[in-house]
C-alpha cells in the first residue's frame, strides 16, 4: 500500500519526497526525522487524512467502564469502552465485555489481541513526552508498527502525552502518526488530555476524530468545575467547523451523521 502522502503532489510549492510507506502500512523511520518543514509535514498529513475520510471529523458520545465496575458517561452513549489500565480491576477483558464494554483503549499487544478475539474494537494509545529523545519516540512508534505487522486490526491511534505536552511537538507527532500508520483508519485527539485548543490544532495535522466526554449539557466552568474538559455536541461541532472541517457524530452501530451548521 502506498502512502497517499508520498504518492500525491501537495498543494503549494512544497512536496514531500520519497517513499515513506512500507508494505506493512508504516514507514521505516519517523517522518519528522526526514521532513523538517512543519508545513510540508502538516499538509502531507492533512492530505492523507482527507484521503482517508474526506474532511470529516468524528466525535462520539461514549461511556467508560471504570475499574470499580461503575460507568461514566451518558446512558444513551453510542460507544462503550474500557481503558487498559482498568481491565484487571474490572475482572479481565471477558468480564468487561460481558458488562457491556465494546472497545478497548489499549497500550499493549496482548490485550489488543484478546480484545480482537472477543470481537471488541481497539483504539491504541501511543505515549510520548515533550522531552522524549528521537530514539524513544521511534521505539513507541515501532512498537505499534510491530503490532500491526501481526495482522492486528486497530481502529484508531491516539497520541497520548505523558505529562504536559508542548504545542509543535504534539502537532508533529500527530502528523507522524497519520503518515506512518496508513492502515489505521483514524488518528484520534484526546481533548481531555490535550486541551481543546491543541486538539483543534491537531485536526490540521492529520487527526480526524475527537475523543473525550461529549455531554448533552455541561455545567458552567466555574470553581471546582473550571477544568472540566467536557464538550457539548454543539461545542464539539463548532470546534471542528472552525478548523474548516466537517463535524460528524458517530451514532449507535457506527452510523455517521453529519452535524448540521
Amino acid at each position: 500500500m502506498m502512502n497517499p502522502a508520498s504518492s500525491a503532489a501537495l498543494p503549494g510549492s512544497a512536496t514531500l519526497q520519497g517513499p515513506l510507506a512500507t508494505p506493512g502500512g508504516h514507514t521505516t523511520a519517523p517522518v519528522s526525522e526526514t521532513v523538517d518543514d512543519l508545513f510540508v509535514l502538516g499538509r502531507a498529513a492533512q492530505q492523507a487524512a482527507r484521503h482517508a475520510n474526506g474532511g470529516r471529523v468524528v466525535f462520539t458520545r461514549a461511556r467508560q467502564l471504570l475499574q470499580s465496575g461503575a460507568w461514566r458517561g451518558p446512558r444513551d452513549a453510542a460507544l462503550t469502552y474500557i481503558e487498559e489500565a482498568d481491565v484487571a480491576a474490572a475482572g479481565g477483558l471477558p468480564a468487561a465485555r460481558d458488562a457491556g464494554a465494546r472497545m478497548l483503549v489499549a497500550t499493549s499487544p496482548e490485550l489488543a489481541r484478546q480484545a480482537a478475539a472477543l470481537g471488541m474494537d481497539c483504539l491504541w494509545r501511543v505515549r510520548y513526552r515533550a522531552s522524549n529523545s528521537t530514539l524513544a519516540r521511534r521505539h513507541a512508534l515501532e512498537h505499534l508498527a510491530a503490532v500491526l505487522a501481526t495482522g492486528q486490526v486497530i481502529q484508531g491511534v491516539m497520541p497520548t502525552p505523558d505529562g504536559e505536552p508542548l504545542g509543535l511537538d504534539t502537532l508533529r507527532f500527530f502528523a507522524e502518526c497519520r503518515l506512518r500508520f496508513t492502515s489505521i483508519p483514524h488518528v484520534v485527539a484526546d481533548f481531555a488530555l490535550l486541551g481543546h485548543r491543541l486538539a483543534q490544532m491537531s485536526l490540521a495535522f492529520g487527526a480526524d476524530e475527537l475523543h473525550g466526554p461529549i455531554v448533552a449539557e455541561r455545567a458552567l466552568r466555574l470553581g471546582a468545575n473550571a477544568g472540566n474538559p467536557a464538550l457539548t455536541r454543539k461545542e464539539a461541532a463548532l470546534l471542528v467547523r472552525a478548523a474548516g472541517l466537517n463535524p460528524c457524530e458517530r451514532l449507535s452501530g457506527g452510523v455517521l451523521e453529519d452535524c448540521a451548521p
Partner: protein
Amino acid sequence: MSFATIATKVRAGEPLSFDDGAALFHHPNLMELGALANEVRERMHGARTYFNRNFHINATNVCVASCMFCSFARLKDGDADAYTMKLPEAWDKLQSRVDAGEPVTEIHIVNGLHDGLPFEYYTELLAGLKRIKPSIHLKAFTAVEIFYYHQKYGMTVEEVLRRLAAAGLDSLPGGGAEIFAPRVRQRICADKCNGDEWLDVHRTAHRMGLRTNCTMLYGTIETPEERVDHMLRLRALQDETGGFQTFIPLAFHPENNALMKLPGPTAVEDLRTYAVARLLLHNIPHLKAYWVMLGVKTAQTALWFGADDLDGTVQEEKIYHMAGAETPQTLSPDEIIRVIVNAGRAPVERDTLYNVIAEGEALLPKQPFRRTGRRALEVVS
C-alpha cells in the same frame, strides 16, 4: 482574488489590498496560509525569536470606562476587587526584583482610567521607578490612557506625553486599539477614545521620537473585514511615521465580562489571524504571540504562523487572568527558551527596542530543563 495571486504579490514584496486581506481570512487551507506567512517571517527574521525579561504593573483597576469585553476594571474605589496601589507599593515591585538580582529590563504599565487621581500620581510612579533602576525601560500607558489624561487634566496629548517622558516614560504599549471600526467600537467600548483618536496619540508619540506597539482585539463581534480594515489603518500610520515596533493580536477572553455569552476565538482562528497579520503588515517589523492570552502551546505554534516574538517573562499579569486566562502568571527565561527551541526556532533575548541582549550559545541551557514546582504551563481545557 486567488491565493496564488496573493502569494505572488507577497513574494514580490507588494503591499496587499483590503480585498486580499479579506480573501486570506476566508481562505480554507490553514496550512497554505501559514506557510506563506512563515515565508515572510523567515525572510524578515530567519529563525530568530525574541523575548525579554519584563514584569507588569497595573497600578489601579478603577476605570470610568465600561468596555464590555473587560474583566479587569471596577467602576470606583471601594467596589469589590477594586484597588489602587499606593506609590511605594508599586515601586516595591521593582525594588524587590532589584534586591533579588533579577535582570528585568522592562516594566509594562497599564491602568484603568481612574477619575480621582492627580496627574502627578503617574509622573511620580515613573520617576520613582527610574530612581530605583535608571536603566529600566518604562513602556507605559496605552493611547486610551494618554487620551484620557489629555481630557481630564486639560493638556494637549503632546503635553501629556512630554511630561510623562520627562518623568521617565520610554515607550507606549499598544493596548486600547480594540477594533477601529465604529460599528464595533460603538457597541463594545463606546466611552473611550475612538479609532482616529487612538491613532493620533500614536502619531504624536512617534513624532516625538517615542516608539510604540499596536494591537487588535479580535474574537468579539467584529467581522474579518473589520479586522482587515483595522490592520490597514495601522499600516497606513506606519507608512507615515515608522514608529510601530510590534503588532500584537489580542484574542478576546470571554469570562467574567458582559460578552461572556460569546465563545471566544478558537486556536485555529488565532493562527489564521496571526498569519493574515504577518502578510498584511509588511511594514511593521515584529509580530508578537502574547503567550498570556494565547496559551503557551498556541503561542509556540504561532511562531510558525508569522509570529517572531513571545513577549517576556511577564509576571503578575492581571488583565487577562481576570478574564479567565489559564496560563501561569510568569514563565521563566529557561521556560521561554525551551518553548522556542522546541519549536525549532532560535531564541534571542532583547530589550524593549529590540536591541539584542543575548543569543546563540549564551542562551542555551547548561543543563537539561527542569521546571521548579508542580505548576503546569496551562490548564488543559
